[in-house]
Structure formats: C-alpha cells, structure tokens
C-alpha cells in the first residue's frame, strides 16, 4: 500500500489505520509521544486533511481526502494542489498562499473543487499555516469538507422558500382582488338596489298621504307595500353591515359591558314597562372588546329576546354576567318561544330563519352578525334553550385582567 514513488522531500502523512505506526515523519518532531495517536485521528477523519508546502505541492493526503477528491495518496503527494482547482478558480490559490505567507488562517471558505472524475463539488475550506521550530511558515494544513449535499439542501430550501413566498404573494393578490370585487358589489348593492326601493316606499307613502282618504279600502294594502319595502331595505343594510364586519379594523380595549347594556335599554321605550320587563341582574363584569360591536351584538340579542314571545305574552328578560377564569359570559335569558335542539346549530348562520320564527319580523342576519362580531373580538356565542321554556343566549369575551 506504500506509494510506488515517494518524493524525496515529501513525507508520507497518515494514510490508513493498517499502517500504524506510520512512517517516521520528518515534519513531526519524533519526541512527541502522541504522533501516532494524532495520525490515527487524522486518518480516521471524514474531512479531507491535506498538507502542502509553500510552493503549493501536496505533502500529505489522508483517507478523507481520498474519498472527497477521488485521488489516492500516491496520485497526489508531490503534485500541485492546483490539480484540485477548477479552471475558473485557479486564481484562488495565489490569494490563499499570500495569506498563509502572512501567517493568516483561512476559515470556512466556501468554494468549488474538482474531483478526479471531473465532477465539481462544493467544499468548505479551513487552511492554517504550519511553522518550523523558529516560527517560519513552511507549509499549510488544509481541511476540506464536502458540503455539496448541504449546499444542495440549502439551495433547495431557499428555492422552496422563494416559491412559497411567490405563492403567498399570488394568493394574497387574488384575495385582495376578490375583496375589492366584494367591496364594489356591496357598493352597487347599497346604491342601485336601495334607490328603486326608496322609490317604491316613498311613492306608495305619497299615494297614501295624498289619495288615501279617497280610497280608504286600498290603504291597508298600500301599507303592506310600504312595510315590505322597508323590510327589504333593512335586509340590505343588515347584509352590508355583516359584510363590513370582516373588513373593518376593530380595535379592542377594556370596556364596561354594564354601561353598554344600560345604554341600549335606556334608548328604547319598547324595552320598558308595560311593553317588557327587562332587568340587568347585578353589575356586568368589564370585558375586552369593541364598544360599537358589543353594542350591536347585545342590542341584537335583546331585540330577539323581546321579539320572540308567544302572542299576548309580555317579554320577561334577565341579563346577567359571570366571570370564569379569564372569560366573561354575558347571558340574555328570555321567556320566549324557545328553540328545539336540532335547530340550534343553524341559528347563527346567515339567512337562517327557523320555521318557528315565521310571523316574526326579521332578516335572518342578526345572529350571524352577533357571531361574526363576537369572533372578531376573540369570543364565542351560544344558546341554551328548549321549546316553550325560553332561551338563554350568551356570549363570552376575554375578561379584563388587572
């Protein structure tokens, strides 16, 4: 296994474990007892470990070097290190040698080298000067690690990241486009659909006002036209506010749910005796939310509680709040018609009106607005109910923590 021709000036470096102890190496002082041990470590390394003199001639070649570059020791020792440099990188050696001569190390220098079979590989080089007993630089040790796979993996990762980035950007653009379309749609909905509705309602009102006395038997029919137009207008407005909920920024802050509820109750005469019996039990705990959104939610819940009672029944509504851990649940309990189990899921979906709700005014959007607005405030909604036993609608929001 010995090289056929050992160059006169070239030491045979550590090569293989079978050859331990190695040939005496003039560059390693023989009094060092660990030379053989070090040689074994070097030979066992996965990395290519090579030494060269200042003329760039290879002076030792370990087994790692054999594997990384494909050359056997006898093929490289005594040959110029330039053999390993691709034609377009031959200049590198000049710079490396210049640095070595100044006594500097080159660390983790990423470059390309060419193997015996002509294949280019990516390597990370660490090159340090070797000095003689007087400290003069006489050569260099060079550790080369094959990072081809690492580099390929890194490149793949970067490519994937770039592709992902591109995809995200494309999808965001598409999403923004759909949102803009939705915006344009809701704009024309509000303008173009509400204008003819206004005409129907206003003109019918004029007919009732100006000619109603002459045709009293037609007035109830015309009033139904007016009522229908008003209801459709309310529906369009509800759908618009539902659509706007997903786009509008709602800044969240600590707020008094108690004040919100009491403001709602104060403003509506139909929430007071003799029309209804509504009581806020105790003081509702403060929550983290958005004032206008919470007002809309609770107004919708109270409105439903008062609305869905059997004919002739005075609505009895209790509003109460309780804090559990970091959540606050605000409940609105009514004495209304109640909801059976199977319909409870559909209740919060848009345009869902239960069969039991026919005969009651409504657009089928109110609870969908509640669910969406509460979700945007990081909360949840729900209902406990049974037919004939009333319902308790509740919403849960983050509590204000001191």
């Amino acid at each position, binding site marked *: 296994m010995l090289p056929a021709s050992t160059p006169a000036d070239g030491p045979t470096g550590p090569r293989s474990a079978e050859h331990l102890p190695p040939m005496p190496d003039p560059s390693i002082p023989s009094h060092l007892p660990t030379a053989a041990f070090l040689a074994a470590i070097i030979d066992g390394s996965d990395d290519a470990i090579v030494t060269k003199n200042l003329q760039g001639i290879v002076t030792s070649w370990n087994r790692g070097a054999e594997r990384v570059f494909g050359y056997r020791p006898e093929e490289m020792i005594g040959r110029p290190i330039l053999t390993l440099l691709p034609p377009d990188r031959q200049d590198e050696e000049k710079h490396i040698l210049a640095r070595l001569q100044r006594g500097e190390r080159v660390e983790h220098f990423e470059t390309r080298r060419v193997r015996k079979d002509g294949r280019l590989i990516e390597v990370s080089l660490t090159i340090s000067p070797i000095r003689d007993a007087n400290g003069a630089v006489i050569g260099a040790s060079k550790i080369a690690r094959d990072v081809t796979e690492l580099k390929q993996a890194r490149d793949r990762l970067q490519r994937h990241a770039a592709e992902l980035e591109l995809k995200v950007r494309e999808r965001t653009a598409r999403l923004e486009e759909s949102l803009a379309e939705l915006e344009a749609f809701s*704009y024309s909905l*509000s*303008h173009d659909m*509400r*204008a003819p*509705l*206004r*005409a129907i*309602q*206003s*003109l019918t*009102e*004029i007919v009732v*006002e100006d000619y109603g006395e002459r045709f009293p038997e037609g007035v109830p029919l015309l009033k139904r036209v*007016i009522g229908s*137009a*008003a209801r459709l*207008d309310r529906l369009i407005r509800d759908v618009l506010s539902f659509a*706007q909920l997903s786009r*509008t920024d709602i800044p969240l802050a600590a707020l008094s749910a108690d004040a919100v509820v009491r403001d709602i109750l104060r403003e509506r005469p139909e929430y007071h005796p003799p029309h209804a019996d509504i009581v806020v039990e105790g003081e509702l705990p403060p929550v983290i939310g958005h004032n206008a959104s919470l007002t809309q939610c609770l107004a919708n819940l109270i409105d439903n509680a008062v609305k869905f009672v059997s004919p002739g029944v005075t609505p009895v509504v209790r509003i109460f709040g309780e804090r559990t851990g970091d959540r606050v649940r605000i409940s609105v309990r009514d004495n209304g018609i109640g909801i059976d189990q199977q319909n409870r899921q559909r209740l919060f979906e848009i345009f869902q009106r239960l069969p039991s709700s026919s005969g009651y005014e409504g657009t089928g959007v109110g609870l969908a607005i509640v669910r969406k607005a509460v979700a945007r405030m990081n909360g949840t909604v729900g209902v406990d109910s049974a037919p004939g036993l009333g319902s308790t609608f509740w919403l849960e929001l983050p509590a204000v923590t001191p």
Partner: protein
Amino acid sequence: MKDAALLLLAEDDELDVMLLRRALKSVELPNPVEVVHDGQEVMEFFQQRLTQPDLPLPALVVMDLKMPRRDGLQALEWIRSRVELRAVPVVIFSSSAHRHEVRKAYELGANAFLVKPPSLGERAEIARFLKDWLRLNRTALDELGSRVG
C-alpha cells in the same frame, strides 16, 4: 327685505328631486330651489355665477354623490379649488354612507353628509334639518353679502 338665498340641488334622479322638493315644501322652506342634474352642471352653474357678480351665490348646495358626467366628489373638489367658492356650504345627500366616501367627502371640504332615507317621515326630518340649518347657521357668505351689499 331681499329674497331668501338660493338652495342649489344637484341630483340626477327625478324622483329624488320630487321627494326632496315635496319635503322642503312640507316644512315651508322659504328659499327658492334650483336644480341641476350632474357635477358638470354644478360647475357650469358656478362658472356662470362667477361671471355675473350681481347674482348671489347659493346659500347652500345639496348634492348627490352618484351622478353622470362628473360625480358629486369631483364637483365638490372643483368647488373647493376655486377661491371664490371655497366658503360655499355643501351638504352631501347620498343613497349610501360608505365609510371611505364619507371620509373622502369631508376631506374634500363637505360641511355635512346626509343619507337619503327610505321613508317620507325621515325625509321630512332632513328637510327640517336643512331649513333650521339655513335659518340658524352663520356662513362666510353672509359676511361677504353684507360687505358687498
């Protein structure tokens, strides 16, 4: 005593013109109402007024947003770009209150933003608001008028 100043209504929808006229009549607004039908006509109206200084500027402009040729916002922007017209009060009277539009209208110098209501009752309320506004509000045009006249 001189006649009450003009109210200029810019509205392309004949029904809306009729409804507002009716509402203004029901609250007995003393001011005469002149109607133009789009933003372009608003500009032509003012251009004519500016070449004839003996004709007073309107006490109030009530303007729809969505109009052919030039819309309400464009007309408003033009009005506010003319030094002589900058102080003319403009009330936007639109069928919707899209929040971007409301903001844009105020940024361009609108003095109020009203939404066309669906019922006659609410429309009468708006007519009353305009009448009270004209009666109670002091505008820069009053000052101008007293100086010129």
